[in-house]
């Protein structure tokens, strides 16, 4: 046992020392070279992993907003301040998200923009809440995020409820579907969207013939599609991502089953069309917000974005940009970067962003949750109309 003790001790010492070898990230000096007070704004999103491009897009949005803010030489409560982004990578994984959230807390950010998807946003929000740090997600749409009753949790994009019900309305009123089959991909996103769609359809008098499921590891959907074929429905609604929606449509064609296909923003992408090939013709899809060219400041922003990063906007960039500006605007109104001071102002902010006017309801959801509908016409997404715009 004595030797074991030695092992123990030795082993823990090794550990401790191994920490010292590891690089540590204590990046918060209080003032910059010109003696301006540094205020840290956190950004969290998947900077690596399957959807890294979307994460980068958000990061760019934040960076752009910060740049402009710094050019204005804002001074809060007497001292000139300069904003600095602390960007962390949650890999889009729940298992990592709390770790990076903690990193942001450690580097004493006064506000957080992020995370990108609901799966990461929800667990992280608890940590920010515990530290009293306000958080605005540019793109997390799951309803639970704002249902937790955290005063500091906001989002600038319509949530799944708004999108789901908009889709249901579109299915019933515009496609005039009566018998509908629903497929979801058993992710938080897919389930959330599909549940709300199902409820709304039923409340509108539509019939859900069946609810089928797949999961993100699958690429063969023939079994469920065949089952749906047997029920001769007049619309299939799929809540999931493009990489499966595409192949699904092909298999739909192979089975000789041609019905209307409606889907959410997960499939409203170019990849979807590429993967579905000619089968994508006529597919309907929704996407939160409005297309860039329909945004109040869309064109101008697009120009600016492409000049700064010489790459084009993916999806959520503008929303991240607006989220950041909203946060800064609240600070200016409160004349303080201290969360407890500016949070009240953030709660009832009225901000004109490039994506539209931004103001939050009691929960922290955006008031004007607009949803746009698109349809594939000869391998292009064509804008149809914007719903839920009230």
């Amino acid at each position, binding site marked *: 046992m004595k030797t074991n003790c030695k092992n123990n001790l030795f082993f823990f010492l090794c550990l401790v020392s191994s920490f010292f070898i590891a690089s540590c990230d204590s990046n918060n000096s209080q003032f910059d070279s010109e003696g301006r007070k540094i205020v840290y704004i956190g950004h969290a999103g998947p900077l690596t992993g*399957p959807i890294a491009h979307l994460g980068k897009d958000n990061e760019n949005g934040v960076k752009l907003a910060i740049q402009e803010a710094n050019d204005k030489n804002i001074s809060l409560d007497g001292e000139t301040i300069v904003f600095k982004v602390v960007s962390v990578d949650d890999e889009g994984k729940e298992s990592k998200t709390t770790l990076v959230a903690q990193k942001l807390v450690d580097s004493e950010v006064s506000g957080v923009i992020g995370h990108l998807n609901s799966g990461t946003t929800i667990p992280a929000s608890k940590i920010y809440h515990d530290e009293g740090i306000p958080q605005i997600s540019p793109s997390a749409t799951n309803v639970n995020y704002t249902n937790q009753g955290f005063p500091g949790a906001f989002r600038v994009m319509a949530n799944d409820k708004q999108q789901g019900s908009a889709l249901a309305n579109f299915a019933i009123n515009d496609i005039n579907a009566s018998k509908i089959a629903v497929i979801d991909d058993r992710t938080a996103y897919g389930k959330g969207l599909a549940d709300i769609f199902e409820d709304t359809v039923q409340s509108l008098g539509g019939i859900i013939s069946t609810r*089928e499921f797949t999961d993100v590891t699958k*690429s063969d959907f023939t079994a*469920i599609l065949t*089952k749906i074929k047997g029920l001769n429905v007049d619309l299939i609604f799929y809540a999931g991502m493009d*990489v499966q929606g*595409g192949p699904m449509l092909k298999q739909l064609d192979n089975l000789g089953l041609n019905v209307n296909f409606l889907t959410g923003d997960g499939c409203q992408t170019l990849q979807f069309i590429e993967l579905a090939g000619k089968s994508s013709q006529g597919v309907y899809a929704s996407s939160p917000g409005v297309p860039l060219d329909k945004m109040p400041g869309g064109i101008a922003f697009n120009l600016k974005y492409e000049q700064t990063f010489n790459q084009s906007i993916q999806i959520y960039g503008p929303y991240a940009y607006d989220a950041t500006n909203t946060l800064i605007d609240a600070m200016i109104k409160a004349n303080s970067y201290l969360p407890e001071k500016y949070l009240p102002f953030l709660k009832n902010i009225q901000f004109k962003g490039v994506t539209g006017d931004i103001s939050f309801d009691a929960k922290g959801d955006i008031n004007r949750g607009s949803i746009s509908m698109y349809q594939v016409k000869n391998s292009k997404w064509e804008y149809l109309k914007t719903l839920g715009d009230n």
Partner: protein
Amino acid sequence: MDIFFQQIINGLVIGSVYALVALGYTMVYGILGIINFAHGEVVMIGAMIALSIILFLFQFDIPIYLSLALVFFGAIIFCSLLAFCIEKVAYKPLRNAPRLAPLITAIGVSILLQNIAMLIWGRQYYSFPQIFNNDTYQIFGIANITTIQIIIILISLVTMFFLFYFINKTQYGMAMRATSEDKNAAKLMGIEINNVISITFIVGASLAAVAGILIAANYGIAHYSMGFMLGLKAFTAAVLGGIGNIVGAVIGGLLLGLIESLGAGYIEKLTFGFMGSNYQDVIAFLVLVLVLVIKPNGLVGEKSSTKV
């Protein structure tokens, strides 16, 4: 009614896919008694290589059949080399190591291959070009099937018979069986067991390459992570049929495919709406457990009597 036949067809197609991959698992297991976890990734590599070759060939206008040949040839060669190296590097040194050691290296290789593939081809899903003119046929007007699906079913059956012949009738086959029975004895009989093992891996990898191409062509999609789940299912199929047994692998594969498609189609009726297609895999695994509880060596696996 017509749905039932369609489901059978679906089951046979995906089952044949499993069977093709399962053959690779079962051969390696038969010889070395290890689960070659990396096999699924070899399938993926096969598909990705094929994709690259196709995209490359698109630049010149070569007759489709020539380019097809090139695609298959290239993928098979590459995968064979890959598998050959994997065996030499990761498994050969561990012939006499604790049983878990080769399993762990196999997992390591699989992780490695997947991430290297990700670095080479990136994370995006590629739409796999149409290499066959893929039209849909109607079988007695009650079920649809596409060209590729027919090819898949045929190839998997053909390969099974080929392998069965290869292993039971040819010199190498005999050597293989001898090696799987007792390596040392085989050595004493003058069999170069290293060659035998290498050949096993190469044959397995060639099948994997073919499987990879067919799968990618069938679903019209290829990406770096397509191999893992497929590998697992195929391995399940191999065990279901009785791992180490060629015929078993195919039977297991087809059975698993049918279970999945019929399960997804009818489970809701069977469970009075409590379970839906989301429990597809549960049925598959439950059947596996059931089979193994009743026949611990799989459906057609020969009984291994404990030598005392």
